[in-house]
């Protein structure tokens, strides 16, 4: 069904090479609104992983039945139905989790990465590959949003993982800077999210450039293939 190489390529694509926030720069609206702390970013990403894996799977299964001309409305129909169904199922059977995750599920509708992956990947690939693609796109978003949320929280208020007590009872947020830290409001406001995201993108590009440079000096052949 799926080879190890294929799997590795899909995972690498989602987590690093085509990272939804850092490379495709999609889904900025929920990203700005939610990443005021690490816990919110993680929760939104978990909900997104679920929705993306399932919508990619559904579209890949139905891909041969969907005429090319009307694929976009059909994709939107599938994704919207799926999000609503997941929302209802959570509310009905996982109510404890719904109270924590529930507010993030409708936010996924504003995230164009779901439709982007359905169109770019699931419409052309078999179900299993498509499901993993959706999942790993979500995982890429998970670490990025957790990092961004953590940074904004730390710079803005000096804490880390505030709100964790709502998710796992008994855990307390970390206070990394002294109580007297006055806070830095800009980091918590939307412009702060843009500035920090810019720094993260720059950081990723710098790391990629370094890796490439290292590859150059070690084996010219690898560098050649990478350059293509």
């Amino acid at each position, binding site marked *: 069904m799926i080879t190890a190489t294929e799997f590795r390529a899909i995972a690498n694509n989602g987590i690093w090479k085509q990272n939804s926030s850092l490379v495709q720069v999609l889904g900025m609206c929920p990203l700005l609104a939610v990443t005021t702390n690490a816990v919110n970013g993680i929760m939104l990403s978990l909900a997104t992983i679920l929705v993306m894996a399932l919508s990619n799977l559904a579209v890949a299964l139905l891909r041969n*039945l*969907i*005429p090319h*001309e*009307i694929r976009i*409305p*059909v994709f939107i*129909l*599938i994704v919207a*139905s799926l999000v*609503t*169904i997941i929302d*209802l*199922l959570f*509310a*009905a*059977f996982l*109510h404890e989790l*719904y*109270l924590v995750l529930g507010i993030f599920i409708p936010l996924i509708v504003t995230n164009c990465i779901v439709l982007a992956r359905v169109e770019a990947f699931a419409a052309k690939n078999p179900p299993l590959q498509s499901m993993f693609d959706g999942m790993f796109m979500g995982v890429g978003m998970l670490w990025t949003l957790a990092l961004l949320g953590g940074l904004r929280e730390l710079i803005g208020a000096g804490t880390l993982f505030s709100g964790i*007590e709502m998710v796992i009872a008994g855990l307390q947020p970390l206070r990394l800077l002294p109580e007297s830290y006055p806070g830095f409001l800009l980091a918590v406001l939307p412009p702060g999210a843009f500035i920090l995201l810019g720094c993260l993108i720059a950081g990723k590009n710098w790391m990629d450039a370094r890796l490439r440079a290292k590859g150059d000096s070690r084996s010219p052949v690898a560098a050649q293939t990478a350059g293509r």
Partner: protein
Amino acid sequence: MSAARELTASGMAARTALILLLFVAVFTGLLSAVYLWTRPAIEISAAKEKMQKISEVLPPGEYDNDLLGDVLMLPPTPELGLTEPSRLYRARLAGQPAALVFEAVAPDGYAGKIRLIVAVRADGRVAGVRVTEHRETPGLGDYIEPKKDRSKGGPWIDQFAGLSLAEVPPADWRVKKDGGRITYRTGATVTPRAVARAVLKAVQWADANRERLFAEGVKP
């Protein structure tokens, strides 16, 4: 030739429209099915959540009626600080009035409104008070919420439990700084003062309206 092509084009359009219609029908059906299937479970969960909150102010052993079924819609009540309609639940034990459970708002918190849920027993004693919503300073004024209250002597807000106007004069329902008996923590006086004032008003309102509230809408 051109007529035949036109026919194929409109035929294509009709086919595409039909397929789209089919998808819409299937997914709408799927959605309705899931909605109908999950509705009872969602209602039960929502009711359970509500009961969970109510049981914190009124122990379930003190009444035997269907509390969520014995509900009165209150118009906006300025005595309780409520500017919008709210619900009032009537607890009865063996058909006799046991307690009233209702919402109240302290409008003068340090950072805006503090929403409370209050239960007052039929004898005028407070059964319990809980904060449902507030924006008081974290780590300073938020000890009104038992979850954030780290004192060892029990949650701050529990000191209202058991008080009644028959035994405690209104002047005592104030923080100690204002000459009352309600304790407070240094650095955050505005918050407990607002809560104490709202609880006193709620109890006075319950005392004044109890008979009417318990009788309303009940067939003799």
